């Protein structure tokens, strides 16, 4: 099961498709859940801790508008976790939590430069495009490893240990 970063980060279609094909979608909703259900945080607008803007500084400089840093405080950890990514170009709406174009540019730049497999598709506007959209995403997700690479490494590490005992 690979952790797949999706853009737009709150997309229903992408989150569902990733889960449907046996992988874990990295979405904004899981980050938001941590923020809004944690009893140590107050209700909005005071729903961030002083640590969050500092976390955002890791991805964007101090001169960058605070909205970018605030968003990156949530999205940045997802990008770091990502083992693959699906980027949809020209989604119909880009407002609300995904409404900042500078954040979106930065996010896409970071995920592309991370070196993980990235699929870039156009948002479908017709049935034919929807078919291609689903087929491309299905083929991409099926090409990703189903097992975690960490598990394989753990297995490999265990094997030489056994050899040592045997020797």
């Amino acid at each position, binding site marked *: 099961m690979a952790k797949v970063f999706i853009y737009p980060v709150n*997309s229903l279609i992408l989150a569902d498709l990733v889960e449907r094909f046996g992988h874990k979608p990295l979405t904004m909703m899981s980050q938001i859940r941590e923020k809004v259900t944690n009893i140590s945080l107050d209700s909005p607008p005071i729903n961030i801790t002083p640590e969050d803007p500092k976390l955002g500084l890791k991805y964007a400089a101090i001169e960058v508008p605070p909205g970018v840093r605030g968003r990156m405080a949530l999205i940045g950890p997802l990008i770091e976790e990502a083992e693959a990514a699906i980027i949809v170009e020209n989604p119909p709406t880009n407002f609300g939590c995904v409404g900042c174009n500078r954040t979106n540019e930065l996010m896409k730049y970071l995920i592309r430069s991370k070196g993980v497999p990235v699929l870039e598709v156009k948002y479908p506007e017709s049935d034919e495009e*929807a*078919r291609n959209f689903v087929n491309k995403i299905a083929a991409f997700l099926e090409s990703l490893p189903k097992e975690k690479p960490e598990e394989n490494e753990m297995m490999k590490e265990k094997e030489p240990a056994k050899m040592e005992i045997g020797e």
Partner: protein
Amino acid sequence: MTETQKEEVTKYIVISSDEVLPSDAAMKIYESEFPVTVKETCFGLIVTGAKDDVQTLVEKIRQLDKNHIFVKDRGFPAGDERRCRASRGGGPRPGFHFLREEVKMLPAIGAALDELEAKEPVKEEHKEKCRLKISDLEKVIEEELAR
């Protein structure tokens, strides 16, 4: 350390099916007797509860019409005062606009998933030009006449 509370999750179940209505799915959840909170909406359901319970229920509901029921996480619990329209004085809930846009595409996505499941050839682009088969022509005529 005291016993930690079970992790609660919330999921949207968006129904874009000709066979299943949100009320059918809600009834299915009530029948299952899992201790979860269900909210019926125009597009489907919002389910809040313990992670395992919600996951099990979601899989059950999805099986009602696998390719036409879509699921995603939600950050806020169902009926949360910070998001619920009742306490915010009406108007669309934040986040609804994007969901509404995506819901419009769901019939096409569902049909594409049906085709994928039926193992129809993946037709990205027509690679070779070939003569139209009589059976295909008949299909096109039937589809046109059925309109």
